[in-house]
């Protein structure tokens, strides 16, 4: 049992007896600083020390496994170019992610508008998912040209499926009573969508977005592996070709950081603009 759980984490969710017992809806969760922050950082530093020591003691060649200190110095030496590569990848990730949202949202709304449309489109969606994106990438380069477009398309293809499914599930799981309530006020189809279905789907949409943003980084890198003259994926390919393993590791670390930061951006956007959604997910996990 975790000591920082809210006191009313009982099984009965619908009838809390005291409003004061309910978890607060707020920007910051209550957290135990020592346990939640310092402990993992400590473990991480320990891991780095073991890594550094192992490389030194066993004299592992730098092209096989560079020590953390070497990764650091080699990457800092190339800070300027690496920065440009990072920005290029970030651009692909964010653009691809936005394209994915812009297409997924109307698609999910369209799909859930009737069972007929759903059964017509759903198998096609599954089909697009069964195609290995890595295999598709070179074909897309031939079709769309050696530019940013195939990278964006791959990022989109990797991210849109979980997003469409999450949004569709959200739109479909509105309680029947809530829809009846809307109908009893003579809500139009548009009002029902805009005032009931979409707001209800917000927590589902955000869980989809969190999965999608992590996948967007993967998609962008796959695109860069196949065709790019910039980007961290491109940097890894070129660096390893010349056995500059420390630089490749540096790019790898930057990609991980990018993934974490973008994920947190999504989390923070949810907390700021949809605090009730973030709060409902926290209690669901607790």
């Amino acid at each position: 049992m975790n000591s920082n759980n809210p006191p009313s984490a009982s099984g009965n969710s619908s009838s809390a007896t005291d409003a004061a017992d309910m978890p607060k809806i707020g920007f910051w969760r209550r957290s135990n600083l020592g346990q939640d922050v310092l402990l993992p950082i400590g473990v991480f530093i320990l891991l780095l020390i073991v890594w550094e020591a192992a490389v030194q003691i066993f004299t592992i060649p730098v092209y096989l496994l560079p020590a953390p200190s070497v990764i650091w110095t080699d990457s800092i030496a190339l800070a300027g170019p690496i920065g440009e590569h990072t920005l290029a990848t970030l651009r692909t990730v964010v653009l691809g992610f936005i394209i994915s949202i812009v297409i997924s949202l109307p698609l999910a709304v369209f799909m859930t508008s009737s069972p007929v449309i759903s059964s017509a489109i759903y198998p096609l969606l599954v089909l697009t998912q069964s195609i290995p994106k890595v295999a598709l990438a070179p074909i897309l380069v031939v079709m769309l040209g050696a530019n940013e477009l195939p990278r964006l398309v791959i990022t989109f293809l990797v991210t849109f499926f979980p997003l469409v499914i999450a949004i569709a599930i959200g739109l479909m799981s509105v309680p029947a009573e809530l829809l009846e309530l809307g109908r009893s006020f003579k809500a139009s189809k548009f009002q029902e969508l805009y005032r009931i279905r979409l707001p209800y789907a917000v927590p589902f949409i955000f869980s989809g977005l969190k999965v999608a943003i992590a996948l967007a980084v993967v998609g962008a890198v796959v695109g860069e592996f196949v065709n790019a003259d910039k980007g961290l994926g491109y940097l890894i390919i070129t660096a390893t070709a010349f056995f500059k393993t420390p630089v490749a590791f540096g790019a790898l670390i930057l990609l991980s950081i990018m993934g974490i930061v973008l994920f947190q951006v999504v989390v923070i956007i949810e907390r700021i603009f949809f605090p009730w959604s973030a709060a409902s997910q926290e209690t669901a996990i607790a």
Partner: protein
Amino acid sequence: MIEIDRLSKVFRSRDGADVVALEDISLTIDDNKFITIVGPSGCGKSTLLRLASGLIRPTSGSVTIDGAVVEEPRQDTGIVFQMPVLLPWATILDNVLFPLKMMHREEADSTEQARHLLGMVGLGGFEGKYPRELSGGMQQRAAICRALIHDPNILLMDEPFGALDALTREEMALEILRIWTNQPKTILFVTHSITEAVLLADRVVVMSARPGRIAEIIDVDLPRPRTFEIEAHHEFQQSAQRIRELIFGNRRG
């Protein structure tokens, strides 16, 4: 006045068989009367309420309100469901105002009206809270305010206290009587509780199941205002006993 005339509703089940939910229901309800509908599970009492609300259409027969046949939800009807079904993303105040927003009937004093209603059910000071911060009973009170915000002449309540604990339930029954006294309106109230049915009603409609039919209509002439003390009253006991006989009678022995 609500006139229910030879109303029947047949549902088609998934395997294609017809299920008769309601058969030949006829009932006339005068304005500002409190009608409770009681009966075993599956007697079609919720279906009756949905037909009266216009959410579903009858297979045959009709519901007429003030001379007009009900074909779709009406603006002069308010509905309370078993679950509060509040919007989790909206504050209590916005939840109460929701019907007006949907019907584009929001006016300058709407907020004040909503605050007044919330105050009346003891939710003053909770306007800015979110539903999740309220207990089940408080949520249902807010749902009742929502059903009253457009000042309907008819209030349809489908087991509104069914999901509440016994104590809250008794409290809410008295609450709804108080609201009804202050703002007289026709109430159709579906319940599983025989005590609740007698306590609240001018007339209790007792239904039987499969197919759903009216078994008997019992007039309750107990004095008002009523409290739970009235349970000791001879006529209360008689009415409750009669309902029990109608519902369980043929199962005894």
